[in-house]
């Protein structure tokens, strides 16, 4: 995890070398090195390990041991250097950004704790996992052999051969994967929540090498932006193609994006466009554009799909809300491109906020405006009932009379649930129809409809506010 906290005061320190103190200020950090400026203008040593020296952080003195100082001259002949702790390698970026002294090898302290955990794993599950790892290794080696044999081949020829392998042996591998997944589902069907957690953890430790071969599985597990379902994952789901450097990796990538849940994500994108078009036809005020609010919008591909002709720019006005700046930036960039292509700028507003804190707004309507169509996909799957109820109530306040709100949530019957939890480390809060509708029980005058898309994984709560 990385919690980015901007340092409040400069971080300073001293290198002690041959009895003399050399003060420095930390300007930045890489994972294992501090970027410093020596404030007395001279380097204590250059490109050598400082035997017996120590670096002391003045604000709260902490010796970080012997270091190597690698100097370089900055602008205006300033004495700059990288300080690399060598006696005890440290996570220097955490030291700089979070004021935490974290040893790079700190995880080794937990070895015994981790090893003890396997005692809580059921023997039949261990056997299943061991067999699976073995079988995956067999497939991996076979596909790797084909990759190796194509290493010096013309790219066009290699691509043709890979297509053929993917179509035959690749498909057979995907079926093998399906079968093993079905066994996993049967095996864990009666587990308690705590057992799911323990076994999932054990499982991922064992198949980690396989997870890393898949661009999609690696991303769901590592979550570089701090959450699952980021815009890159959405793009991978929408692309639904073979990605990766190796045949095995490509297949391991393709398998999870062919699941019912992945298809549900693709289905809802299309469904949203249809729903917005329907809302346009039925709009309360035909004299103006339909005002749309997307909450937790992500890259908002469905909004791009909405604008296909120049006149669409005048039909819709969008407000996009997300906590992820990167996702908002992507949405803005692509929607701008759509406007350029259509030679008609799209009316769009981009708001960065978290739904959990947006509720504190005293005048939410002044802040976010009123809308004819509000939707949110991939958000309520993470909100517990008290939060979901509260969010829904505030969003309803933002709905114009006669407006419509559509909220997505994965259904408890999502057939990809075990796959998501065990392989992807991706846990959602699933709901039944009754739980979902109960969230809106207190919305004044609202009428509800609940339906699912084709795969029946994704459920929608369709809320209508009475006119006038």
């Amino acid at each position: 995890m990385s919690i980015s906290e901007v340092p409040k005061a400069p971080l300073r320190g001293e290198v002690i070398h041959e009895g003399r103190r050399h003060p420095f200020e930390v300007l930045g950090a890489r994972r294992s090195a501090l970027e410093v400026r020596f404030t007395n203008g001279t380097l204590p040593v250059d490109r050598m390990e400082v035997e017996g020296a120590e670096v002391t952080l003045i604000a709260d003195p902490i010796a970080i041991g012997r270091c190597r100082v690698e100097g370089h001259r900055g602008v205006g002949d300033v004495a700059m250097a990288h300080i690399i702790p060598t006696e005890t390698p440290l996570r220097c970026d955490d030291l700089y950004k979070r004021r935490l002294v974290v040893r790079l090898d700190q995880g080794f302290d937990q070895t015994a704790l981790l090893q003890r955990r396997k005692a809580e794993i059921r023997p039949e599950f261990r056997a299943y996992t061991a067999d699976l790892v073995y079988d995956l290794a067999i497939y991996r080696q076979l596909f790797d052999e084909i990759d190796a044999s194509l290493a010096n081949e013309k790219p066009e020829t290699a691509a043709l051969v890979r297509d053929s392998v993917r179509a035959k042996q690749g498909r057979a591998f995907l079926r093998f994967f399906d079968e093993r997944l079905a066994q996993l589902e049967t095996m864990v069907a009666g587990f308690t929540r705590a057992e799911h957690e323990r076994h999932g953890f054990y499982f991922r430790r064992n198949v980690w090498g396989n997870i890393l071969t898949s661009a999609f599985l690696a991303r769901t597990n590592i979550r570089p932006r701090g959450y699952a379902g980021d815009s890159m994952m959405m793009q991978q789901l929408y692309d639904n193609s073979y990605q990766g450097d190796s045949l095995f990796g490509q297949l391991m990538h393709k398998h999870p994006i062919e699941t019912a849940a992945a298809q549900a994500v693709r289905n809802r994108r299309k469904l949203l466009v249809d729903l917005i078009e329907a809302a346009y036809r039925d709009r309360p005020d035909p004299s103006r554009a339909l005002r749309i609010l997307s909450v937790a919008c992500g890259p908002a591909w469905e909004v791009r799909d909405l604008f296909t002709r120049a006149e669409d720019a005048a039909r819709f006005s969008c407000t996009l809300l997300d906590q992820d700046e990167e996702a908002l930036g992507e949405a803005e960039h692509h929607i701008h491109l759509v406007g350029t292509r259509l030679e008609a700028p799209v009316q769009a507003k981009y708001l960065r906020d978290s739904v959990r804190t947006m509720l504190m707004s005293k005048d939410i309507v002044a802040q976010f405006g009123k809308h004819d169509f509000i939707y949110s996909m991939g958000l309520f799957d993470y909100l517990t009932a008290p939060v979901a109820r509260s969010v829904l109530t505030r969003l309803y306040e933002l709905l114009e009379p006669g407006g419509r709100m559509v909220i997505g949530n994965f259904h408890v019957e999502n057939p990809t649930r075990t796959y998501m939890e065990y392989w992807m480390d991706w846990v959602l809060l699933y709901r039944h129809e009754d739980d979902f509708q109960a969230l809106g029980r207190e919305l004044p005058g609202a009428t509800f409809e609940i339906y699912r898309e084709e795969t029946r994984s994704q459920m929608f709560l369709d809320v209508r506010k009475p006119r006038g």
Partner: protein
Amino acid sequence: MTNRTLSLDVDPVWESIDRVRRENEVFLRTHQIPQPSIEALSMVTCELMENAVKYGFFEGDVKTIQSRCSVESDSVVLEVRSPVKPGDDAAMARLDHMIQWIRGYQDPFQAYLMRLREVSSQAMGTSESGLGLVRIAYEGQSVLDFFVDSGSVLNISALHAVEGAR
């Protein structure tokens, strides 16, 4: 029919933590919640209440902490409401980040390990370890969530699935 929600309104003092814990325990027992769940939820109650007493801002209109314990068909939801300093967006953003991070793992043990590493590191001038929240997820077997309402009251909740329910 027995009331399935216990609501308490208490002063922001240390003694309130134990009072809420005891009353929740009795309430949960009345509803035949299994003992391991009662123990887990007692710990969760203490952690949430302690945070409310420690970090609540009681200089505004709201002077008390509200606790709510609701027994649902397959789960128990604990909610603790306490006022936060208006405009302290950074603290709420940190809480948001921390809760999303904890919930990012299928097994909270993983978050617990990561957090332990950091707590055992030497922190410079930091007072919030975040370990209490991780314990709620790991030892308390509960899903954390929160929101802040328009009166600057933080509502933090823990959803505990009763054994057998996924």
